[in-house]
């Protein structure tokens, strides 16, 4: 009978409810992620034992003085970037699926991510001298442009699932072609940088990139989460949402803005990591149901976990060769997408 956890302290005028599975699952996901992170930081050409990883992170003395550099400078920021990017993409996907009421609409499926890739690659290839802190902003611009175009072309006349995806695939292809154009004619050094980045990788990401990305993640992630109630209303359809008193256009614009900003900044940081934004919300819904106040954080932690593990697997599977984690997420995600498509057709 107890389906909800109700928080209603008598002293402060705050009240809300959560699916009661949410806290346990969040704790479980955080623990699983921490384990994966410790393994990930320990893994590499120069292995560090898990216990020493933990000691180093906690600032304790270890047997080897090199560990500090390997862990704190080379590997920890990288895995933290993977975690953050996974969370950002997952939140973006959850928001996109929520406002479109389309379980297949995640930024990477509907072309928003490719818009971000295109502008970011353009910046890297044509203006390599500009500071990297600009990349998120530029990627956001690309993502936003595609989002607006999709809204105008596919969404206004009723948001049919198939139409949204078809138009999105069209934009994906256009943006992909233009990105190829950049890569083909650009300066070879800049292009090779762009290519590694394009495959979706956290290779070589450090504290600096993390510092640029985290404000976007926290700011827009929090905005999205604070608007959970609006997302829940929007999920019931435009007419029901408006009958309930939702200021539909405003809410939807704000949510779209947060989704696009999260996708754009995540892609700017780690390239186009495909299918994370699609999978994480589905896994999250299976864990805690479709109410966003619980779904958003759970999907975020799921997405973070997935990318951390993908990055670990990418380095483990064919070591010493390193696969970009975007390839791992695509190998797992593409069949999942097909499965969702088939299931959607049957229902």
């Amino acid at each position, binding site marked *: *009978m107890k*389906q*909800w956890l*109700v*928080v*209603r302290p008598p002293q402060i*005028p*705050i*009240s*809300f*409810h959560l699916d009661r599975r949410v806290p346990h699952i969040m704790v479980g996901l955080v623990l699983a992620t921490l384990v994966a992170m410790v393994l990930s930081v320990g893994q590499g050409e120069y292995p560090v034992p898990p216990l020493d990883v933990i000691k180093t992170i906690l600032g304790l003395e270890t047997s080897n003085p090199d560990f500090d550099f390997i862990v704190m400078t080379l590997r920890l920021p990288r895995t933290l970037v993977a975690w953050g990017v996974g969370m950002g993409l997952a939140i973006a996907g959850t928001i996109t699926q929520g406002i479109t*009421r389309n*379980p297949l609409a995640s930024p990477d499926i509907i072309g928003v991510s490719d818009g971000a890739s295109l502008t970011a690659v353009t910046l890297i290839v044509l203006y390599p001298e500009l500071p990297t802190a600009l990349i998120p902003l530029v990627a956001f611009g690309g993502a936003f442009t595609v989002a607006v175009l999709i809204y105008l072309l596919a969404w206004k006349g009723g948001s049919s699932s198939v139409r949204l995806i078809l138009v999105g695939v069209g934009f994906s292809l256009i943006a992909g072609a233009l990105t190829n154009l950049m890569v083909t004619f650009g300066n070879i050094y800049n292009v090779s940088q762009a290519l590694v980045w394009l495959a979706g990788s956290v290779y070589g990401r450090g504290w600096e990139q993390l510092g640029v990305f985290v404000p976007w993640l926290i700011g827009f992630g929090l905005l999205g989460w*604070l608007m959970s*109630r609006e997302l*829940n*209303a929007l*999920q*019931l*359809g435009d*007419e*029901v949402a*408006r*009958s*309930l*008193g*939702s*200021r539909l256009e405003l809410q939807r614009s704000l949510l779209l803005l947060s989704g696009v900003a999260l996708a754009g900044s995540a892609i700017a940081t780690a390239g186009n990591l495909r299918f994370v934004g699609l999978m994480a919300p589905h896994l999250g*819904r299976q864990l805690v*149901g*479709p*109410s966003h*106040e619980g779904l958003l954080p759970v999907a975020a932690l799921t997405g973070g976990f997935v990318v951390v593990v993908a990055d670990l697997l990418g380095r483990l599977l064919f070591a010493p060769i390193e696969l970009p984690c975007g390839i791992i997420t695509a190998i797992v995600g593409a069949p999942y997408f097909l499965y969702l498509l088939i299931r959607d057709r049957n229902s």
Partner: protein
Amino acid sequence: MITDTPAYALTTRKLTLAYEGKVVIESLDLAIPTGQITILVGPNGCGKSTLLKGLGRLLKPKQGVVYLGSESIAKLSTKAIAKRLGLLPQGPTAPEGLTVRDLVAQGRYPHQGWLQQWSKEDEQQVNWALSITQMIEFAHCALDNLSGGQRQRAWIAMTLAQDTDILLLDEPTTYLDLAHQIEVLDLLHDLNQQQGKTIVMVLHDLNLACRFGDYLVAIKGGSIFDQGQPKQVMTETMVQNVFGLESRIINDPVANTPLCIPISRRSSGTVRVGHQS
């Protein structure tokens, strides 16, 4: 509580509604009596659903005004309207896995704020809505796993949790078998009788409309053909004019309301009552 209850819960004056330039309802004057069940009937495409959307501010009038009580609906905030008027569109859909309780709790949306998202009052109102619709035992079930009638009751419970004096429903009985249709209409009748709710709904079944409606509005081509009590409105002439169908109106032996018997090609040639041979 509004002490001075107006005689008409909703009024339209010269209301014109259009979809992308195509006029559906033209210069329509209508008054919905407070505390009664008003039923809009008419053929497909006559504009009855559009009118309901106009009454519920889902469709902005091209011209004319809708008054909620004595206030123009265009001048009220959408949240303020949502506290006084609930609307259930036709065939609403919920995301997979949403439970009945999750859905019904959504009805509290207009009463909640950033900080107060689940007050005691919200909880009480949701529990009341679940119990009056007899959905308590299904509260934790996912909507996808319910029968059509139960699902419709869950949606009605959501609009009830909204705690409004006025309920607008667009074909609340579509896709339901006859037993479930009666179940839903009986529930609405009880709500009208016991809670004094003003109910406006679109119904396709003329006989159920006569049985459950206090006030009938027959719409044809975007304007009102006739309105009043079912006994006055439901005539053979009305059915002929509005639906283009020949019929006989007899007395419903159960409810003592008009009963429309359509005449079809199949029946008209063989007017034999007690056929033997």
